[in-house]
């Protein structure tokens, strides 16, 4: 380059007008943007824009905690949770309605009675078409879809995708499951099916516990759902709300004992022809229910069969919800009242003439016989209605009913299961109470009790302390990370400990003297049979009875109390014939399952 020319050019100032124009242009654009922003802020539509912005800035999410689990006393899971899926459609993304309807109706037909009907495909098709026309964004199509069913749907979806990608033709009318979405959630499941079903209850489709502990502890088990507005702006991450899971329950039930008792009851129903039955096994020292069953039972995983299984208002759990006239097992309470009040003692002799008059009616013995002079043990051993009526007369109505009320008859036991019935004990002063009721009540007629009420009342005698223990099926509650073990509750002390021991010995001797079918080899047990007529619309029904047995042991170191009720047995109406053997079978299992040493070994160990 010629240095002279360069020097000459550089003596002139360079021109920056292009840059200036560019700067001005950018500045103008910037100003325009700012002006537009300002205009939008003050425009009449500003409120709408803000509202729209807010509407899309967050979404409402509801978090449902897992329902608490239920265990038996050793930790075996009785009620847990399993994964299921809700399947729905993001309607705008659905490519082929026919395929979606076909796939769902085909896959879900087998495992879901509610989806197995012939018109399900048409229903799905109509629902999807309607949603498409209305512009609905999401529509649920099926619920409680199992993981296997979902896997099948996913496999189909992927296969259709592959077909679309390999096919050169248009995607229109190609099979596709596009638009189908799913959401996992937990559903209640019962690994033991119908085992302890009458105690546990079940959870319905809406997630609400029905019957048993599922209903009684529904709030605790279900936990608190948490609703939270979640910002969609990733910079505005809010804390995930703390969601406490539902509390867990540990029951007092022993799974093995429960299974054994259920098997024995089913066998007893088959052998005796009884229409129904109840067996309760409890620990009289604490009130813990170790096993409780009644017939019928429901497979809790198929709770929708409830209506079929429990037709004609059949109670879900007869042990707590059904009342009946217990018959002679009730004499245990009458005799306890007589002994405790001192109006009779073990050696008091009553001369049985075969009948006794009370309130204008004549009471007879079960065999219409006259048993002559009998001490109180004889009265119980031969189950003499006349003698027990005499004891009640000796007590007088006020004292007798005071004792009965102290035993909790006619009141709820407060057991931690839903749907408990309170029974009925007519009292002097009630419009339908007559003096004759004192007589009939003394041997368990004209009074309505639940089997559980009898168990609670007799626990005061069985534990040989005179303390009536509150029956319960929940041993522990696990909540907030801690395990709470409620202490056994003494409901009352209706009798003295001496009375309890005296009556226990009396009833143990009674069983031994009559060589009862209830006797268990190696173990001394006390107990009483019961046979009650069943009231009907026109009075007591002929040949229909409730056969019962209540027994406990081992005498001197009580560990169990067993109550048996067989409704309307056909092979024999007598409790001593049909219910006593059931008691023995239960105890034979119990002593093994509970590691109870035979009496001689126990005494030997005690001496050591």
């Amino acid at each position, binding site marked *: 380059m010629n240095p002279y020319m360069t020097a000459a050019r550089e003596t002139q100032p360079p021109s920056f007008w292009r840059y200036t124009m560019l700067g001005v242009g950018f500045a103008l654009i910037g100003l325009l943007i700012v002006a537009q922003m300002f205009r939008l802020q003050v425009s009449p539509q500003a409120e709408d824009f803000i509202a729209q912005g807010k509407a899309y800035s967050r979404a409402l999410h509801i978090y449902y905690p*897992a329902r608490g689990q239920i265990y038996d006393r050793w930790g075996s899971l009785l009620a847990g949770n399993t*994964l299921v899926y809700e399947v729905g459609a993001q309607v705008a993304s659905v490519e082929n309605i026919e395929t979606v309807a076909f796939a769902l109706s085909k896959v879900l037909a087998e495992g879901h009675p509610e989806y197995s009907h012939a018109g399900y495909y048409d229903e799905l098709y109509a629902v999807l078409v309607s949603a498409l026309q209305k512009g609905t964004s999401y529509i649920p199509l099926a619920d409680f879809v199992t993981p296997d069913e979902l896997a099948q749907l996913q496999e189909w979806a992927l296969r259709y995708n592959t077909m679309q990608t390999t096919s050169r033709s248009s995607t229109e009318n190609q099979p596709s499951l596009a638009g189908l979405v799913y959401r996992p959630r937990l559903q209640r499941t019962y690994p033991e099916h119908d085992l302890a079903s009458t105690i546990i209850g079940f959870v319905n489709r809406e997630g609400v516990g029905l019957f048993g502990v599922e209903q009684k502890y529904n709030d605790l088990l279900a936990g608190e759902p948490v609703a939270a507005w*979640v910002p969609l702006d990733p910079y505005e*991450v809010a804390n*995930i709300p703390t969601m406490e899971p539902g509390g867990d329950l540990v029951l007092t039930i022993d799974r093995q004992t429960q299974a054994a008792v259920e098997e024995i009851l089913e066998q007893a129903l088959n052998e005796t022809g009884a229409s129904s039955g109840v067996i309760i096994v409890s620990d009289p020292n604490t009130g813990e229910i170790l096993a409780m069953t009644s017939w019928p039972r429901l497979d809790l995983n198929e709770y929708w069969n409830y209506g079929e299984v429990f037709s004609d208002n059949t109670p879900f759990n007869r042990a707590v919800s059904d009342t009946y006239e217990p018959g002679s097992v009730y004499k245990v309470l009458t005799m306890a009242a007589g002994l405790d009040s001192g109006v009779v003692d073990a050696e008091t002799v009553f001369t049985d003439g075969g009948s006794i008059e009370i309130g204008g009616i004549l009471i007879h013995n079960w065999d219409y016989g006259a048993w002559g002079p009998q001490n109180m043990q004889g009265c119980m051993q031969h189950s003499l209605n006349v003698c027990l009526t005499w004891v009640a007369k000796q007590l007088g109505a006020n004292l007798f009913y005071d004792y009965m009320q102290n035993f909790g008859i006619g009141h709820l036991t407060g057991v931690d299961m839903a749907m408990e019935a309170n029974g009925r004990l007519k009292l002097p002063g009630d419009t339908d109470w007559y003096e004759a009721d004192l007589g009939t009540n003394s041997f368990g007629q004209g009074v309505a009790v639940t089997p559980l009420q009898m168990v609670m009342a007799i626990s005061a005698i069985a534990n040989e302390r005179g303390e009536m223990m509150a029956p319960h099926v929940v041993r522990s509650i*696990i909540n907030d990370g801690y395990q709470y073990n409620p202490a056994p509750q003494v409901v009352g002390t209706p009798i003295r400990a001496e009375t309890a021991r005296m009556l226990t010995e009396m009833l143990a001797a009674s069983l031994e003297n009559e060589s009862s079918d209830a006797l268990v080899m190696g173990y001394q047990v006390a107990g009483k049979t019961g046979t009650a007529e069943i009231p009907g619309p026109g009075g007591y029904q002929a040949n229909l009875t409730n056969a019962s047995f209540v027994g406990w042991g081992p005498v001197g170191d009580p560990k169990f109390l067993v109550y048996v009720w067989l409704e309307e047995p056909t092979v024999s109406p007598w409790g001593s014939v049909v219910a006593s053997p059931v008691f023995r079978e239960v105890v034979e299992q119990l002593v*093994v399952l509970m590691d109870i040493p035979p009496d001689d070994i126990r005494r030997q160990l005690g001496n050591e």
Partner: protein
Amino acid sequence: MGQRTTARTRVDWQAVLAEQVAPFQAPWRAAMRQQMQLMGGVLLVIVAAAIVAGIYLNVTTRAAAIGREIQEMRVRMSGYRYLESSPDPATAPIEEMEQRIADLESQLAFLTSYDVMQQRADQLGFEEADPEDIIYLEAPGYIDHQEAVLAPPPTTVVVSADGLSPEFRQSLVDWFKEQAVEASNWRFLFSAEGQP
């Protein structure tokens, strides 16, 4: 001629020098220098701003990415998934893991349910013993099966001042004193006097 030539050459040389230096000494040149300095300053500010913006972008991008992951976890907890999607199990939220654990617990319970265990025992040839055949034996050291303990018992939390960390109790002045004492102790330990 030669003299003229020599003189002319000398004068030209000076003129050329003057011409070359002139632009640097021109008034607009001084203004331009100022402008260049200004531009340099502006550029410096821009570069500094760019660095700050870069750092800011980096941080906010990472925050946004984490925010998106959290959002996805929330959607996985309560939202919907497409059939074709396969969620990454490695980034499953705790709630999803808990759902899976609950499901596995139930599956295990089904596999060890009373009926199943009874069937397995039957298949293995076990038979139920008759009550007459059962003998009670005292086995020294035998530990009976324990009742379920699924969580610790509730404990009373007693908050005492002594139990609190010193950071929550001492003032800043106390802390400085403590540090000074500790520092002197360390110096003593490492000094010749402190050598054992």
